[in-house]
């Protein structure tokens, strides 16, 4: 059984790993020269409800990537406005570590290869085309192309290409494979009839900051600086993807987190204004390179899907990550990815597809985001374990648990312990 995963970000890697564990032959096709996509500039794990989700994934047998981010953690249990017990992984070390794991598992990865079209037989995808015309067949496909960019979208719905980690001008733009297969994409909104949302953070080169700030970042992992009164812009919060960071505190303060870069918790910040702040007089952006002007635009390409991560209307296409809903974050990508990869194998074997139960945070967010995306109001929200609407729901429903043993016990009781480690083929 051959499964092709289109896109090698966090969700693509998670899908590949779970499909491989279930016994399939797996190939990841990635348009750039790096795995992890936005994971190369992310770094925040285990904050708020993500702690629960991470432990659930481990209990379910899908903890491979969590273990890798844990092992590459720079700072544990950091608190910053609205967030508790965050772990920050080193963005400069994470990609090779994941790549080694993927290699070791015998998952093939084809880099600098852009999937642009499909060959259909009824509602089944027979094969896909790369941009150079090469044709690749497989039994099941998992689309994890994300919803970020490309340049035309960043321009129409944002401030233009800001040169983010996806590097579309160099490697070519993402193409929505579900759309090529005949399924219209759903678009997220940030206000009424304003589509898409800005990525929520940018990164500064640590070496460009004052010694004092660097020292504090190294020691504590977090620095909070006051924004000059005249530069406070609360309107900007509306544009953000990451509603868990769209708090008043993030408009009034500069929040820097140490992920190897100094992660600046705002979509973009004009450089001249940024440099007025004490300690940032010589600050320089490293992601996006034009972080003074804008950031990437996301959520313009969400596929309709079932709670088993299967794209509605197609026979053998699964999806995960941002492609599968208005999700934010790595943990969310690993959650949807693991389920998509596992169910891709079940689909081909003719087995019933796995549904994660709603008394697990991981199962609930998948179902909840799916319900919500069907309403106009729901398309203006984002879904993350780390904050905003969904974290509140976790607390209200009593599924926000911080004791790993309790989570293990809960998953065992559901007879789902190590389900993702089961070989099916």
């Amino acid at each position, binding site marked *: 059984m051959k499964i092709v995963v289109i896109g090698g970000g966090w969700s693509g890697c998670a899908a590949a790993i779970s499909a491989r564990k279930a016994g399939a032959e797996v190939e990841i096709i990635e348009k750039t020269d790096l795995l992890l996509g936005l994971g190369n500039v992310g770094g925040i794990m285990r904050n708020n409800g993500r702690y629960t989700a991470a432990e659930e994934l481990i209990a379910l047998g899908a903890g491979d990537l969590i273990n890798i981010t844990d092992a590459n953690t720079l700072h544990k249990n950091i608190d910053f406005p609205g967030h508790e017990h965050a772990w920050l992984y080193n963005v400069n070390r994470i990609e090779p570590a994941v790549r080694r794991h993927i290699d070791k598992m015998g998952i093939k990865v084809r880099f600098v290869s*852009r999937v*642009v*079209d499909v*060959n*259909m037989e009824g509602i089944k995808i027979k094969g896909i*085309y790369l*941009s*150079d*015309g090469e*044709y690749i067949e497989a039994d099941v496909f998992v689309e994890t192309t994300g919803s970020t*960019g*490309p*340049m*035309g*979208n960043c*321009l*129409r719905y944002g401030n*233009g*290409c800001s040169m983010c980690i996806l590097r*579309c*001008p160099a490697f*070519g*733009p*993402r*193409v*929505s494979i579900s*759309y*090529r297969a*005949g*399924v*219209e*994409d*759903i*678009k997220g909104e940030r206000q009424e009839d304003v589509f898409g949302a800005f990525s929520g953070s940018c990164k500064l080169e640590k070496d460009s900051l004052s010694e004092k700030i660097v020292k504090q970042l190294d020691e504590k992992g977090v620095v909070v600086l006051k924004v000059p009164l005249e530069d406070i812009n609360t309107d900007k919060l509306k544009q953000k993807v990451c509603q868990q960071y769209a708090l008043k505190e993030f408009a009034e303060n500069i929040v820097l987190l140490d992920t190897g870069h100094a992660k600046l918790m705002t979509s973009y910040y004009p450089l001249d204004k940024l440099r007025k702040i004490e300690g940032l007089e010589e600050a320089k952006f490293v992601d996006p390179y034009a972080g003074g002007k804008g950031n990437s635009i996301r959520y*313009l*390409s969400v596929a*309709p899907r079932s709670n088993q991560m299967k794209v*509605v*209307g197609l026979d053998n296409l699964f999806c995960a990550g941002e492609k599968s809903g208005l999700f934010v974050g790595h943990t969310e990508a690993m959650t949807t990815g693991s389920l998509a990869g596992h169910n891709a194998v079940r689909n081909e074997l003719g087995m019933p597809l796995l549904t994660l139960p709603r008394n697990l945070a991981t199962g609930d967010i998948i179902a909840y985001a799916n319900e919500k995306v*069907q309403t106009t109001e729901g398309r203006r929200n984002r879904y993350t374990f780390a904050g905003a609407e969904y974290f509140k729901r976790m607390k209200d429903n009593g599924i926000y648990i911080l004791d790993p043993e309790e989570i293990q016990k809960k998953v065992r009781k559901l007879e789902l312990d190590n389900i993702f480690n089961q070989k099916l083929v």
Partner: protein
Amino acid sequence: MKYSDNIVILEAEVMGYEPYNCIDCGSEYCPCHLAESGNCILCSHLDGKDFCDCVNWNGVCIYQEFMQNNFKAKEGRKHQRFQIIDKELVNEKLMILKVKVTKKLASELVGPGSFVFIRKEDCEQAFDTPICVMDSDTGNDVITLAIELKGLKTRILKNVNVNEHVLIKGPFWNGILGLHSMTSMKRQHCVLICRGIGQAPMVPVMEKLYNNENTITVILDEGTLDTVFIEKELKKYAKEVIKTNTLLMGGILDGKCRKILEGILTKGDVALVHCDSADVLSHQIMKIVEAYNNDIEFSCSNNEKMCCGEGVCGCCTIMNDDEKLRRLCKMQTSPKYIFEGRRLY
């Protein structure tokens, strides 16, 4: 299913995915009138959609270029007045002109597939005739045009004299289909076939292949021109030249030519076959090459009739049985997408 109304079945593509480029993409002429009018052949935003569907990305975001140009097309190519510095009437069917042009234009016309529109100064624009650039001398800024004196436009052009002026519009680049296959050949054995006036566009092809250290075999048919006017270049670039008849009456491939080609292919080292001739010959050659080995690259001259060269007049548009409109002054694609599925009426 809740989303059933979201599902649309996209048009089935008979030939599958077609990797193509726009020859003007990323040049000073992009975005063009097609982008402005919502008919860009590459960008979905400039072709009636409100999202990226960048299936044929070619290194430049045309939508960005369009926005940065204040939502307007760039200015197209202009007619420029240039002096004839040499004119040779080889015979009653063939004239070779040398035209002194600007440094910029000469440098833009060096590549294979380059062509210009030319007409006499006292003629209307309808007399513009597309002529391939046989040679562009960037040291002296002189281009050489070999013109078959055949129809109304070329016959009037015949009356132009040395030191007189002509109107030239250029540069245009889409004179070859499968351009990338040809230009990317390095240290390979390439077979070039030409007939009649096809000798002219073959010169820059030979030069490019030679500079990339390829070994060149030429199969040459004088056709109805009754002359070989590229002897000097053949001597310089080709390892072997085989002169033969290629077409019989009624457009049938001459058995002799077929035998020669198959004899060369059988040796097994051919990486590219390039054809500068009428479509009727190019197509038959392509089928032989395909049947022999699908891995051999094939390129040929783009013979579509051209009138404005800028995607506006519609003269060069074709629609095959895949119902896809192709504008051949702009669209750089493989010959098979042009020849296969061609409608007879």
